[in-house]
């Protein structure tokens, strides 16, 4: 056994990782709690991967088969309904914690030098996660998912010059058809997973390279800072959090399983009271606000333009707020808080 271990050690040098893990420490301060959000996202991502593969074993990405195959998963396969319910709810949990993760980093200014690229890959991961949600929403192919996809893929059209092209690309043509479904499926199960693994690899590497960021107050009192070993102390604490989250996820998934409408009819009128997933509500409400035309510019173009500027500002936040770590950065905090308030208010409004 030791001989075998030595053989692998000589070829792989894995003890370097063990050494790194033994040395790695997690600082303890009043903002330590935000460190837990990262691994919680990862837990939900793992659940998404496992349940997603399970669903894909039986799912059929075709106009005729999609809705029927989901119905079969939910009614015929052992535990199928709960597998779908977990996949749907775990997506919601993951995106919710992603928002918390992002905002905690924005407010503790953890994106500042040298962690600018870590922040940017994190923002791109959020975009990929939202794209996962958007493409996944179509796959059950019922009237709600069809309407949501028609609206969602029509939005890029408001962008001048490239917009019409983008819509065409997303829809695989001028309209939402069976080809859109197949395209969304392959984006959901192949293209986006590749993107997320690539980005996660860079994100993790940078986190290890730069170490955990310290919030402002802790940074100034660095000498007296306590820390706990990553392994096993911190990992066990994280595991306790995972267990609680898993319990909540299962409870919610069992009590509130997602429904499945009848197979989408391309000729049918949109169902009344359609709403996108909750994490798109504030964008949905923003689009509703704008009139058809402001002077001579289409209202939608202005809305998409403003949303684009907001997203870009978030992406480039570390470059805009590029002051040294010891400065407070009230402007950046104000911007982030304003976005939070705006998003919450808009979401609440759209639910009224």
């Amino acid at each position, binding site marked *: 056994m030791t001989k075998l271990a030595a053989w692998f050690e000589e070829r792989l040098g894995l003890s370097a990782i063990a050494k790194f893990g033994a040395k790695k420490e997690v600082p303890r301060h009043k903002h330590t709690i935000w460190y837990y959000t990262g691994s919680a996202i990862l837990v939900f991502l793992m659940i998404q991967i*496992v349940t997603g593969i*399970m669903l894909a*074993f*039986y799912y059929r990405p075709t106009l005729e088969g999609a809705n029927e195959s989901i119905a079969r998963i939910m009614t*015929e*396969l*052992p*535990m*199928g309904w*709960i*597998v779908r319910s977990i996949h749907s709810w775990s997506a919601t949990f993951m995106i919710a914690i992603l928002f918390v993760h992002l905002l905690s980093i924005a407010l503790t200014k953890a994106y500042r030098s040298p962690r600018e690229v870590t922040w940017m890959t994190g923002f791109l991961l959020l975009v990929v996660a939202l794209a996962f949600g958007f493409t996944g929403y179509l796959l059950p192919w019922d009237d709600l998912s069809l309407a949501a996809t028609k609206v969602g893929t029509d939005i890029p059209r408001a962008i001048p010059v490239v917009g019409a092209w983008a819509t065409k690309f997303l829809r695989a043509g001028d309209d939402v058809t069976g080809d859109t479904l197949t395209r969304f499926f392959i984006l959901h199960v192949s293209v986006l997973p590749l993107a997320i693994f690539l980005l996660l690899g860079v994100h993790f590497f940078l986190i290890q390279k730069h170490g955990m960021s310290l919030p402002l107050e802790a940074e100034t009192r660095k000498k007296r800072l306590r820390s706990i070993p990553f392994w096993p102390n911190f990992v066990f604490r994280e595991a306790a959090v995972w267990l609680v989250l898993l319990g909540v996820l299962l409870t919610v998934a069992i009590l509130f399983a997602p429904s499945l409408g009848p197979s989408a009819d391309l000729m049918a009128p949109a169902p009344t009271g359609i709403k996108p997933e909750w994490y798109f509500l504030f964008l949905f409400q923003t689009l509703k606000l704008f009139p058809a035309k402001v002077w001579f510019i289409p209202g939608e173009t202005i809305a998409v333009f403003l949303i684009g500027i907001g997203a870009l500002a978030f992406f480039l936040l570390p470059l805009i707020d590029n002051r040294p770590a010891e400065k407070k950065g009230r402007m950046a905090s104000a911007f982030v808080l304003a976005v939070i308030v705006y998003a919450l208010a808009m979401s609440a409004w759209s639910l009224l």
Partner: protein
Amino acid sequence: MKLPYSMFSRRSFLNGLLAGLGTALAGTFIGPVIRFVFPPYKEPDEVRLAFVDYKDMKPGEIKGFAWGIKPGFLKLQENGAYLPLVGVCSHLDCNVAYLPDQKRFFCACHDGWYDENGLAIKGPPPAPLRRLAAAVEGEEIIIRKAQG
């Protein structure tokens, strides 16, 4: 009561407890996953054929039918009874073809041969074709799994 010594240290007891709970938890997750990944295959309990379609068969003649999602062959024997066979090769699961002019079943995958009663006569098949049971009831021929 305080024991003079213990086989376990408190640490090893707690470690064992934690590992045990972890394994039990993992088991409760993996169990349903396995059940989901291996869906129950249900072969039909019985298949009902319209007698009209088969009553013109001559003794020794063989006609096809569907045994669920598998091909079936119904042979009218010399004594007037029906012999239903599942047309799936006993070697590696290929569907077989019936060649009426040779009165033999042929599996193209690995050149396997069965006689008209489904008995393996040449090539790799290790066993005869699977036999079902048939009974004429009123206007229907009812095919069931063979007893035993």
